[in-house]
């Protein structure tokens, strides 16, 4: 599982803690750099009639803008930069991870949990800033008998706290499973050829075809999981903006 190993590139130790610049950090910087380069250079012309590059950025922009409006409401527009950044970062990280020798940062739970955990904190703080103690009404559904109330509130609180876990595990598990599947099929090719000789060379065509197919599937999964991560962020933001229902 060499492709999932993290090793420091520039070792930095401050006060007993390890702040090393690792290969994971390097690939995150590459993702951020590519997203920035893609959006900034493509929008340089600012033409009324967009060219190829400009319209591809505009497709992303309108896609996320519609997603935020439909799922989080009109007053969620101020969170558009956040959702756009999240989607582009995860999308590019997933796509970069498909290249050979690249490192998939989203296949590490600590990366996805850091993203999901900061969204959880943002949603909670936004809710309390906008609604004050009324935000706690999110945990009290309407029309529940008083006897059942403590039980229901307990369940709702646990359900709320479990959000960042399912939010982060979904992205991480999909990326990890996809890359392990690719690795297993690649391993079949090696063992067929070394174990079966001439027949193995012919038999190895089958797992090779599977790898091609699964790589195509992984492009879909990478895009879909970036979309799911962004749309769930929108739904959590809607709860923070309108805790009424």
């Amino acid at each position, binding site marked *: 599982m060499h492709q999932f190993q993290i090793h420091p590139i520039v070792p930095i130790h401050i006060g007993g803690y390890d702040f090393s610049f690792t290969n994971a950090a390097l690939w995150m910087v590459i993702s951020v750099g590519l997203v920035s380069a893609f959006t900034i250079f493509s929008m340089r012309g600012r033409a009324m009639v967009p060219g190829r590059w400009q319209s591809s950025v505009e497709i992303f922009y309108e896609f996320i803008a519609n997603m935020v409006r439909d799922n989080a409401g009109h007053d969620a527009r101020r969170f558009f930069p956040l959702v756009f950044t999240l989607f582009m970062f995860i999308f590019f990280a997933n796509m970069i991870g498909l290249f050979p020798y690249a490192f998939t940062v989203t296949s590490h739970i600590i990366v996805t949990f850091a993203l999901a955990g900061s969204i959880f904190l943002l949603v909670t703080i936004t809710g309390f800033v906008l609604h004050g103690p009324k935000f706690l009404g999110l945990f009290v559904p309407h029309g529940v008998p008083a006897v059942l109330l403590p*039980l229901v509130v*307990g*369940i*709702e609180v*646990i*359900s709320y*706290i*479990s*959000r960042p*876990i*399912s939010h982060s*595990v*979904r992205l991480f*598990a*999909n990326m990890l499973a996809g890359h392990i599947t690719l690795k297993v099929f690649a391993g079949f090719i090696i063992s067929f050829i070394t174990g079966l000789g001439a027949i193995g060379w012919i038999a190895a065509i089958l797992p090779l075809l599977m790898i091609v197919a699964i790589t195509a599937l992984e492009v879909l999964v990478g895009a879909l999981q970036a979309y*799911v991560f962004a749309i769930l962020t929108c*739904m959590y933001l809607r709860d923070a903006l309108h805790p009424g229902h």
Partner: protein
Amino acid sequence: MRLSSEFVGGVLVGAGLGWGLDRIFGWHPIGLIVFLGLGTAAGVLNVIRATRELDAQRKGKDQ
């Protein structure tokens, strides 16, 4: 994948909260039992909500 992570998340948070409360208040193992039950219920609630959202999205596309 989505539904299973919703359910497991609920159970894990319930178990974690129960275990933490046990350690703080020394109620071993009552907190773990109670919160594991609550967590399972929260997991089921998460799954129900997720499927309802999926249903709503599908209906929105049909119309």
